[in-house]
């Protein structure tokens, strides 16, 4: 990918900035996921149908 971008005249500094930004976004998402509580199990019953919740046991 680095080569591809270089061919299209992207500056090395721009590329490094993009990679840094992507890594930060992934890190933030990971942190959010790990710090979030698990969802309510009953969420599994939602959104299978529009306007209708699936029957639980």
């Amino acid at each position, binding site marked *: 990918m680095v080569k591809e971008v270089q061919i299209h005249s992207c500056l090395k500094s721009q590329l490094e900035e993009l990679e840094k930004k992507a890594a930060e976004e992934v890190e933030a998402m990971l942190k959010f996921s790990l710090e979030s509580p*698990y*969802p309510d*199990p*009953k*969420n*599994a*019953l939602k959104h*299978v149908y529009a306007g209708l919740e*699936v*029957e*639980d*046991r």
Partner: protein
Amino acid sequence: MGRIVSFGKAINEALHQEMERDESVFIIGEDVAKMGGDFGITRGIWQRWPDRAKDTALSEAAIIGLSCGAAISDLRPVAEIMFADFIGVAYDQLVNNAAKLRFMFNGEVNCAIVVRAATGGGIRCAYHHSQCVEPWLMCVPGLVIVAPSTPYDAKGLLIASIRNNNPVIFLEHKTLYNSKGEVPEEIYELELFKAEVKKEGTDITLVATMAMLKLAYEAAEELAGEDIGVEIIDPRTLFPLDKATVFESVAKTGRLVIVHEGPKGLGFGAEVSAMVTEEMFEYLKAPIKRVTTLDVHIPFSPVLEDYVAPTTGHVVKACQETMEF
């Protein structure tokens, strides 16, 4: 027997032994040759028989279509659909070609293909890689659906499936691949269309499939403490079903609980329940119960997947309610 091997190894051994015995057998699928399959089940075959192990493009329809063509030319393809969920992509080839060829040609051609597919949930693979697809297939006349639960059964049933002249869908539950059991080294065949009574009992017939056998055994052990004798039946061939074995058991116990993965609606349990209600109604002492996955998609979150899946507790409760009726 004395030799302990895994479910996955038992299938690998069956493939090797059948390819050794019959040169018309070959394997085909995505990454089945050089890589040895996504789950490693076809390892070593390409190295030994490079001309009889075919990697394909990512086209399940092409895999099954090509297999049908090979089968009517008297070859015996063993196709792999990496995840059973992708059978949907090849559905037309299975339903409108594989299942019908024999009938369309007045019994003059065989479509002796085996379609191996990894099925079921439990390994956090979410919606598109966790489904139990047997209801999509059981309703198609001409297809045989085989679903082993032990390494011993997996080897013997796969060998029987390869030798059988019908299109056989051979379902391999992903959580069973590493399970271990006694398997003879020699080549052997188990009868298709024949259920097995895995444990005898007098109070409740518990029909369980694939990975659900583990739940059935655990429930039976717990219920033994309440003096409830559970008879466990593994259908092994889901369809056409060995009704006689199930009926004989229900005639003895008068109670039936069916445990399978996958939605309850129009699933394997619905069919077994209908068969028993139609033909064995007078023997029933209580309504038939089904323990299944909820009628939803398999969620990605582990807590959600665990919530929708059947558990040993659900099986115990269903059996207790059946006894108390």
